[in-house]
């Protein structure tokens, strides 16, 4: 599969503060790539470099096979979409008028507005002024704006941070559908559940460096302590080795009808992050 993003030895230093330091990764065309890390770890700086909003101090960053400096050209900006924590919407205008502007800027027919509003569950609210919307609704309009031109590559910076679980789920479904149509998604989040359910691969960013990069499943297997937890009828929870040593004990519990539940003890991505970096995601 072709790489849509290629980053090599990328660094950005602001005044005398290092935001990212020698970051290397590739994002394959068609995948959902999770860029995970706590606040201040350099996630947004990386997105800004990859979208041509920031110039790197050193290293290279290529998007669509071209250096990010080329992203100032119209033909490249048409190919990606960005959702950041700053809505960038016109508060005095309606949802419809905000999206109409972007339809015209991207040469997209206005009929697309209803389609994207449906995807973010806001079709009935399109005549509402943006300034009257809740934070979650505003976030959904911003996402609709990022989706309106069906970009090949979508940068999402904490897309569901202000949303309730129902709307997050709705957005996740929309993103999966978009990804199924071929859009590559670069997602930054500190929501580990979101990363686990959406991402094909994840990178852990901490203090400006990538600490781990792999699929969520492989990471969980790598950091698993290979034990199972057995809940017994008397309420006791017993931890057993997952291998042959635990098998006899488990058989005995099962044979005497004592087993209520059995769970494998895989770590969550959050557990792995804490284990690797010693920091909590917040």
């Amino acid at each position, binding site marked *: 599969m072709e790489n849509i993003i290629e980053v090599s030895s990328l660094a950005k230093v602001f005044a005398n503060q290092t935001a990212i330091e020698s970051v290397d990764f590739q994002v394959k065309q068609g995948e959902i790539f999770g860029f995970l890390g706590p606040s201040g770890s350099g996630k947004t700086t990386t997105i800004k470099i990859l979208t041509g909003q920031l*110039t790197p101090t050193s290293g290279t960053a290529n998007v669509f096979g071209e250096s990010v400096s080329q992203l100032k050209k119209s*033909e490249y900006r048409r190919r990606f979409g960005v959702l950041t924590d700053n809505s960038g*919407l016109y508060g005095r205008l309606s949802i419809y008028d905000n999206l109409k502007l972007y339809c015209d800027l991207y040469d997209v027919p206005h009929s697309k507005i209803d389609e994207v509003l449906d995807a973010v569950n806001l079709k009935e609210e399109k005549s509402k002024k943006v300034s009257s919307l809740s934070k979650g609704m505003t976030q959904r309009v911003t996402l609709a704006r990022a989706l309106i031109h069906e970009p090949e590559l979508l940068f999402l910076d904490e897309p569901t941070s202000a949303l309730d679980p129902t709307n997050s789920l709705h957005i996740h479904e929309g993103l999966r559908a978009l990804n199924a149509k071929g859009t590559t998604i670069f997602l930054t989040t500190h929501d580990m559940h979101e990363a686990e359910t959406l991402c094909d691969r994840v990178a852990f960013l901490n203090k400006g460096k990538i600490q781990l990069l792999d699929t969520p499943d492989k990471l969980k297997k790598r950091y698993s302590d290979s034990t199972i937890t057995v809940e017994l009828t008397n309420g006791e929870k017993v931890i057993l080795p997952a291998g042959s040593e635990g098998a006899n004990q488990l058989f005995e519990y099962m044979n005497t009808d004592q087993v209520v539940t059995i769970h494998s003890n895989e770590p969550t991505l959050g557990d792995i992050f804490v284990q690797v970096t010693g920091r909590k995601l917040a």
Partner: protein
Amino acid sequence: MMISWKRVNAILQKDFKDFSRNLAVSSVIFVPIILGAFYGRMGVDSIDTHFMLVNMTFGMVAAFVQCCLIAEEKEKNTLRGLMLSPASTADILGGKSLLTFIMTMVVVFFTVYLAEYKPANVAIIAAAIVLSSFFYIALGTLLGLYSKSVLEASVIVMPVIIVFSLGSFITLVVEKYPILQVATYLPNIQLVELATKVEAGAGFGGVLVEFAIILGWVIASLILTVVIYRKRMVD
């Protein structure tokens, strides 16, 4: 530089809707018109006064409104959205300036009409006013790009309004303070000189120097604006 009229028009329509709902800024455009009506009723009829009103319109509408429109786009982070879209620098700056240009022309027209100013040569004065407006719009854009918020913009644009509205009175003290001779090359003073010559019967050939100086200011301000805008595209 490529320009897409569809994109320019989209930004113009958006700006018109947004501006018409922003009373804090839009109400400013009535000040020169009210002053024009006031001076007209008072029977004031001198080139200096008429062009104080015209230059005030440039300061309050072309520079102030443009500065606030750009500063608000920066403050609300909407300018970044436009910059990340396929719209070119020309599309964005053209679209952002078109509303201000149209409003400036409308306000200048009503202001001079109510002030009962009847130019000896309408074509020359109209051409000079259109040319001058480009300088003030570029200046407003530049100040807007430097401002972090509408509040800051409305403060930093004040000296511009004062210097360019009342600046023509500098000519009264130039003999006393020769250093101020430099100020006579400002576009507002050149506009007054141009209008004075036109009233004395000069044609296009007689005001070429004034046109050239104003054009020089326009070109310099446009180049500076585009350079600063492109720098602002990258953090």
